[in-house]
C-alpha cells in the first residue's frame, strides 16, 4: 500500500479528541519549561521527547479501528491493538530520526540562527520517511542487490 491522504478520517474524529491532543501537547510544553527553569536545561530537555499524547492517540486509534470493523459487521477482536502496534512501529522510525534532530540542534544551534531548528525539523521528516521506505521495500532492495551481484559474478 502506497502513502495516501485519507481526509475522511477527519469526519470520524470527535471534537474532544482534538481538544485532548491540544491540552496534552500544551501541558507537556509548559511542564518541560517549568522543569527546565527549576532543574536546568539538562533535565528539562529530556521532556522534549516525552510521549505525552502517545497513550491518548493510540487509544483513539484503537477505538476508531474497532468502530470501523463493527460498522462493517466484522468482529474487531485484537484489530484495535494491532492498529496501535502498527502506529508504534512507525513511531520507532520517527524516534530514530528524532535522535538525529536533537543531535543536530545541539551541535549547530550555538553557531547558527534559530532557523536551524526548522531545518532540523525538515531533516527529521526526510529521515523518517526514508527509514519507513527502506523498511517497506527492504526485501525488494536486498533482492535486487543480490540479483545485480550474481549477474556481475556470472
Amino acid at each position, binding site marked *: 500500500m502506497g502513502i495516501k491522504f485519507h481526509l475522511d478520517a477527519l469526519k470520524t474524529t470527535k471534537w474532544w479528541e482534538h481538544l485532548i491532543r491540544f491540552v496534552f501537547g500544551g501541558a507537556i510544553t509548559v511542564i518541560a519549561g517549568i522543569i527546565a527553569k527549576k532543574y536546568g536545561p539538562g533535565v528539562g530537555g529530556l521532556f522534549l*521527547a516525552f510521549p505525552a499524547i502517545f497513550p491518548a492517540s493510540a487509544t483513539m486509534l484503537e477505538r476508531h479501528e474497532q468502530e470501523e470493523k463493527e460498522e462493517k459487521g466484522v468482529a474487531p477482536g485484537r484489530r484495535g491493538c494491532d492498529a496501535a502496534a*502498527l502506529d508504534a512501529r512507525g513511531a520507532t522510525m*520517527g524516534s530514530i530520526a528524532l535522535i538525529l534532530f536533537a543531535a543536530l540542534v545541539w551541535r549547530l544551534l550555538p553557531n547558527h540562527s534559530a532557523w536551524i531548528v526548522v531545518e532540523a525539523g525538515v531533516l527529521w521528516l526526510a529521515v523518517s520517511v526514508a527509514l519507513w521506505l527502506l523498511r517497506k521495500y527492504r526485501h525488494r532492495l536486498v533482492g535486487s542487490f543480490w540479483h545485480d551481484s550474481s549477474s556481475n559474478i556470472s
Partner: protein
Amino acid sequence: MGDIVIRFVVGGVFVSAFALIGSVLKPKSFAGLFGAAPSVALASLALTISKDGNAYAAAEARSMIAGAAALLVYCALVIVLLKRTRCHTLAATLFAVVVWFGVAFAIWGALLK
C-alpha cells in the same frame, strides 16, 4: 503567568497540527511516524531561543537525545506488549511511560549529565 499561557497555546497548536497530519495519512505505520514528531521540541525550542538564547536551547537539545532514545525504547516496548501479550492499548502505552522515565534518566545520568 503570560509565559505559561503562551507556552500552553504554542505547544498545543504544534502537537495538534502534527497529530492531525498523522491522522489523515495511510498506511498506519506511515502515520505512526508523526507519533514521534518533534512537535513539543519545535514549540519549546522556539520559545526558549526567544527568551533564553541559542546556547540554553542547545543544552536542552543535548538532553533531548536521551529523551528521544528513550522514546525509541518506549515504542519498541509498546509493540512487544501489544503483539506478544493480551495487553490493552491504554495499559501498554501507560506502563511504557514508566520505562521511558527510567531509560531517559539512565541515559542522561550515564552519558550526558
